[in-house]
């Protein structure tokens, strides 16, 4: 009985010591503060873009010859030159559409042009298709933040295309690249 009691109290002391040990015995941190390799934070601040039309697109006058049958594609290029087709007569003063875009200097801008519908007074329609170069154009704003670009494209005219003055709106959107 005597022996038993003494053994118990030794155990009790041991348990208490173990609980206290971490605070007493844990080695102080000897590792130095480690810094990461230099990290970089970035931000690009730009002015809002403005888009202004400086010229409408005009194919001029296209006269159907009697020999015109299936649709022929009439193309206008960025300098406003119309490539007339075999069975059409082209005249007038065609012009490509042109726009001024302004924003922050040296930025690249993306241009989005959708195909548009031209409508004549009787309700007949023609589809204007922007040229592939117009849809891929990426003007670069100059040191003052300005650039301009032109829109070229084509329409299809067949013998069945009604006569009239076809007019429509072209949706053009610009955004920073």
């Amino acid at each position, binding site marked *: *009985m005597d*022996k*038993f009691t003494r*053994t*118990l109290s030794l*155990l*009790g002391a*041991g*348990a208490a*010591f*173990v609980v206290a*040990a*971490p605070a007493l*015995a*844990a*080695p102080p*941190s*000897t*590792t*130095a*503060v*480690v*810094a*990461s*390799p*230099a*990290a*970089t*934070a*970035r*931000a*690009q*601040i*730009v*002015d*809002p873009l403005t888009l202004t039309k400086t010229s409408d697109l005009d194919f001029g006058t296209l006269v159907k010859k009697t020999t015109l049958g299936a649709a022929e594609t009439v193309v206008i290029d960025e300098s406003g030159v119309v490539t007339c087709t075999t069975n059409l007569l082209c005249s007038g003063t065609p012009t490509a559409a042109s726009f001024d875009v302004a924003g*922050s*200097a040296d930025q690249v801008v993306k241009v989005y042009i959708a195909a548009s519908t031209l409508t004549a007074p009787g309700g007949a329609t023609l589809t204007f298709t922007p040229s592939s170069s117009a849809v891929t154009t990426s003007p670069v704003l100059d040191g003052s933040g300005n650039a301009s670009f032109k829109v070229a494209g084509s329409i299809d005219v067949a013998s069945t295309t009604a006569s009239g003055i076809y007019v429509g709106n072209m949706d053009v959107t610009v955004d*920073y690249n």
Partner: protein
Amino acid sequence: MMVRIPSVSMALLLAVMDLYSPMPAVAQCRLCVTPSTGPEAETAPPVKLDVETNLDFDRLVLGGSGSGSAVLAPDGSRSTSGAIMTLGGRAMVGTVIVHGEPGRAVRVSLPGAITLYGPTGSEVRIDSIRSDLPSLPRIGSNGSLSFRFGGELHVSGGADGNFRGDFQVDVDYL
């Protein structure tokens, strides 16, 4: 009779040891050996950090010459106020991976603010830098701990251009 008493005491003694002792039942000098509850400094692998992604506010459209701010929170959410009209879709929080001893507690120090410098010497500032670290960060069982951080960018005076600033993240074992 005399033979029986010690065996009863023995059984009782063993039972008591199970109750009290978190230590293995091996005889140990508890008063002279330092029980190790954590690894000693000399054998722990050194702690190090890698910045996986930089904090990038991408493109901000600043309307007019007013001032504004944009916030990128560590969880990736974002907001803008004042003259800042939009924040680019490619904006990214910073991510850091800390490597070290599994289970070890660490202290990570992020800068209080970062100054970004622009093309003509203009400056913008990111402050309120916050991370998604828990209050007592520990290296995971795979030996690494990763976290994200973000901040609030303040812009004024109609400055535009590309802004960059360097900073460091510090870590040490606790």
